[in-house]
Every structure is written in C-alpha cells, then in structure tokens.
C-alpha cells in the first residue's frame, strides 16, 4: 500500500497551540528531519522544535563593526591624506564631524546585510528534504503543517503515520518526489 517514492509525510493542525504541542512531541520522539510550515510566526516554536536561537545577530554585529571601520577609514583617509583642506584652521582629523556618516554607514551595512543574510539563511538552513513548495498545504492561509522528511533516521512509513495521527493531526498524507499528493 505504501508508495515507494515517498518523500515525506504531511500533517495539518488548526491552531498554533496544537502545533506547539505537536512539535514538542515530535522533538521528544527523536525525529530530526522535520519542519513546521505556519502562516505566521508561532511564539515558542523554536524551543518546541529544539532549535537554537538564530545566529543572525552575530552577522549584524560583525557588519556593524565593518560599516563603522569603513566609514571612519574613508573619511579619515580622504580628509587627512588624500585631500586635506583647511576649513577655518580646524584640524584635518575633525573626528566628531565624522560621526554622523559613521553612524549611517553602520546602520546601512548592518541592516541591509542582516536582511539579505536572513533571507539566504532561511533558504539554506533546511532539512535534507524540505517540504515541496508546490504542494497545496494551506500553510500560508490558516494551516500549521507538520512535515517529516523520509530522510529522517527514524523514518518508517507506517510508524510515522500512526505517530502523526496520534498527535491529533488531520489530513495526514504522504507526498511523493514529484511533488504530487499521494493520499
């Protein structure tokens, strides 16, 4: 009965609370290659799924420092070495006047860099077989969708299906490689 080319199993939940409870049980059952697709961020889902905090703030910090160094370096080099001008006898290295641009450069690097890295990280930080995009899961509407990938070390179709049903999921179904549904 089981399809041979199964890629994973979908189960649907109707509320964030049900999804949180299910995620914790999937985590505790020892599954690793699973994911939740939700229409909005569910608070506490990171812990429930056993994920660590996002490392994006470190990227922000490094980029902010880069922005500061770049802006200070450019201004200092241009105003002191490359094109020193005497503005009313003021020092060439008028560093307090460099602060506004330094601040803006810090925000520019940190903000844009974090946004870009977060999008790329979100695409790359995934399980070996992510939930196929083309399956109509309703996860952008009102469904909280559990996906367990067939690559999971504990994958055993009948067992997984029974387990997901025991979580109270509805619409439990296998999904094959081609992205079509196989109920």
């Amino acid at each position, binding site marked *: 009965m089981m399809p041979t080319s199964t890629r994973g199993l979908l189960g649907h939940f109707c509320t964030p609370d049900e999804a949180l409870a299910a995620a914790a049980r999937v985590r505790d059952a020892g599954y690793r290659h699973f994911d939740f697709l939700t229409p909005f*961020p569910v608070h506490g889902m990171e812990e429930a799924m056993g994920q660590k905090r996002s490392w994006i703030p470190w990227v922000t910090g490094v980029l902010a420092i880069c922005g500061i160094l770049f802006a200070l370096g450019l201004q200092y080099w241009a105003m002191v070495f490359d094109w020193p001008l005497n503005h009313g006898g003021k020092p060439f290295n008028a560093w307090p006047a460099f602060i506004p641009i330094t601040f803006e450069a810090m925000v520019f690097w940190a903000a844009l860099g974090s946004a870009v890295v977060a999008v790329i990280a979100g695409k790359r930080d995934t399980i070996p077989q992510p939930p196929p995009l083309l399956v109509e899961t309703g996860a*952008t509407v009102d469904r909280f969708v559990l996906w367990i990938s067939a690559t999971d070390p504990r994958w055993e179709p009948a067992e997984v299906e029974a387990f997901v049903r025991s979580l109270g999921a509805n619409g439990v179904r296998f999904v094959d490689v081609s992205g079509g549904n196989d109920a």
Partner: protein
Amino acid sequence: MTRHEMSPWATVQDDSQLTGRPLVVPGAGPYGGDLEIPEPLVTGGKKWADVDRDICMHAERFPTRRWWLAFGVALALLGVLVVSLAVLIYSGMGVVGVNHPVGWGTFIINFVFWIGIGHAGTLISAVLYLFRQPWRTGINRAAEAMTIFAVACAGIFPIIHLGRAWFAYWLVPYPNARGPLWVNFTSPLAWDIFAISTYALVSIAFWYLGLLPDLATVRDRATHPWRRRLYNALSFGWTGSQRMWRHYEAAYMILAGLATPLVFSVHTIVSFDFATSVMPGWHTTIFPPYFVIGAIFSGFAMVITLMTFMRGYFGMKNYITTNHMEAMAKILMFTGMMVGFAYTTEFFMAWYSGSEWEGFVFKNRAFGPYGWAYAIMFTCNAIVPQLFWWKKLRRHTWVLFTVSILVNVGMWFERYVIVVTSLHRDYLPSSWGMYSLTFWDYSILIGSFGLFFTLFLLFVRVLPVVAISEVKGVMDPRVARSAPTDSGAAAVTAGAAPGA
C-alpha cells in the same frame, strides 16, 4: 495565548460596535487585581482564510472606477511635477521665488516636509514593534509604503536645488577623475546624502522583508501560472517553514532595532543643516528633537489621512478599526503638544540667551510680516490637536480627517516659517527682503503630491496593503481557525473558506 483564551469579544461583528474601552474583570488579574481585556484588533468575526481574501482582493481584480478616478487625478498631478521639473532644469532655478536674501525657499521647505512625512511610517513599523503594540499590524504596511514614497518625493528637491541636477552624482564619494576630489565629509549637506540614502534603502529593506510572507500568500492564491511564478520569485520561494521564520524573525527584530535610531538620526541630521549654521533662529540646540518630533507628528497626520481613505474606499474597516484611528489620534495629540512645547521653548531660549539677534528673529517670526504663517503653524499644530482630549472626537472619522489635513498644512508652514523668517531678515538690515512664491513654487509642491499618490495607488493595486501574516498573529485563534478537513488543506485558491 492566555489573553485570547479569556477573550469574550468573539461577538464583535462590526467596527461600529467597538467602544475603545477594555472589558474589566474585577479580581481576575495578577495578585487579585483587575483584568483588562482589550477589544479585538480585527472585527467582523474574521477567520484567517478571510484575511487573505479581504486583503488580496484589491490586487486580484480589475481596478474599480473609483480607483481609476483617483489614479487619473494623481497622474495629472504627476504630469504637473514632470513639467515643472523640466522647466526648472531647462530654464534654471530663477523661475521659482528663491532669490536673495531667501536662498533656501521652496526646495528646502518641501524637502523637510516630505522627509518628515516619512518618519511616521518607520515609527509605526519599528518603534511600535519594539514597544509591542499589536495594533500597529493593521497599518504598518501602508505606513511603510508611505515612508518610501515620501522619501522619493523628498529626494527630488535637494537635487533640483543643486542648480545643475545632472551633476547630482558628484555628491557621492567615489574615486573619480576630477583630481583627488572628495565631498566635504564635515559638511551637514554631505551628512544628508548618507542619511537620506541610508534611510531610503533601509526602509525599503524593512518593508520588503515584511512583505515576503504575504507575497507567498498572494502566490498561493494565484490562479494564473505566470502570476504564481512572479509572486513566487518576489517572495524568494517562501514556504512559511519554521526554519525560515527563525532567521526572519531575528532579522525583523534587528531591522526594527536599527531603524529606530536611524529614523531619529535622519531628521536630526536634517536639522543640522540649519543648526550648524550661524543664523539666528537656526543656530539652536533644540533643533534635533524639535525636528524629529515634528516629523513624527506630521507623518502621523498623513497616516491618518491615508487610513481614512483605506477604510472608506477599500473597505478595510475590519482591519483598520476605529480603535486604530483613536490610537493614532492620541499619538497625534501627544506629539502636537510636544511640538507646541518646542515652539514656546524657542521663545524662552531666545529671551534667556540675551542675544539681541535671537530675540529679534523670534519677535519677527511671530509678529513680523510672516506672522500670518506663524499663526497658521501654531494654530494647526499646537491648538487644533487639543480636540483629541475628547474621546468622541478621536473616534469621529471626519474630525480626524479634517485635523489630519490641518496638521499637514500646519507642518508645511512650520518649515516655511523656519526657512523663510530666519533668512529674510538677518544681521544686516540693508539686506533684508521678502520671499514670495511663484507659479512654479506651487506647481512643484502640488506635483510632488501627484508622485506620492500615484505611487501609493499603484501600491494598493499590486501588493497586500495590510500585513497579512502579522494581522493573523494578533487574531483570536478560537475565532480565526477554520474546521479541520479530511484533505488537511484549507481552501487555498477557491476563495470560499468555510463560514465566509
């Protein structure tokens, strides 16, 4: 979720049933105190599936006649802008009223005016996010769009004011063949370039990051394969995976945290254009906070103006409720009082400084030949918002709308007063003069509204005007959930959710 579990508001069917007051349950709160349950942010007993349809609807059908009418007017005004810019560039700046002694007239006034408008969008999207104000979800998308379009309008003016707009790229520091020629990094005008361009780009990034999940929603509703492909590409293949949300949430928080000091820095730097000069009336330490709060004040007025249209014409009353409008009215009154406080503090500082020139400039400001402009400014900004002490007026659509227009007028005159009165009578009485606007001064101002409204009307046609995923997050799951189905999936494409 405890707030939702206690919520007795499932019966609020209509915006008009909202009272603006929480339900108080005596003794049910922590430590035996009262529990206050706020009214729902979304009315009409909406389900999550309804949100998608209600908000995406405007981008999924042919434009209505009313939209064409509005768009026609906006396009006509945009035409006015294009013609004005062509004339200004072709014949030079002499066609506007900017001349000795007022060399900073219409361009700087309109620049500061539009940049100020933009600031409320960032305040709503970033500052209210950090302060955990859930009501921001209904208005933040449109307010952020307003920010971007207002910055686009603002950017035009300083470039034209350069005189030779085609050399505007000289403002950007890059290695060039004009000798080792750099911009003067210690000049506030160079700071402006960095501040405004950073502000524009970070605002766009923040706005687009917020759009990603909603673009995926539009994709999943699309029936045409090309529309599906387009929105899939625009959403970078968003699936709603928790592994995406994890980084997304972190980045969103960080961008909010960075946009908050950014928005304050931008108008601070704009005020430095004035404050670092030696003109009496400009050379004051109060300028940065005074400009920032004025910017937020004027921006909130514009948000109220736009939201009134969205409620009325786009049927968004269930998402942008009277309670949202009242919250904005409160902010408008609060910032209006701060602006009024700044106006009076300026007079105190002028007197307390003992400087004859400062004293004269402020007397001249309020009672000189431009006293009428000062009177408009003070009335519209400091006095009219006092109406919002009355709850009934805060919740009255037409009162809100009228006040928001008056505040916009008042804030334009604030910049007029600041720029013109300090320049037209400075240290040397033999150099005194008057400033009068010409036809082209008016046309470029009116035309900039054309650009603003054209962009805004296009925005409401192609993108979700309310942050769908954020609104879903503040809805009561008991009301918003739909029943489980055998197939699991909800009605994604049909648009006929159960209970709709």
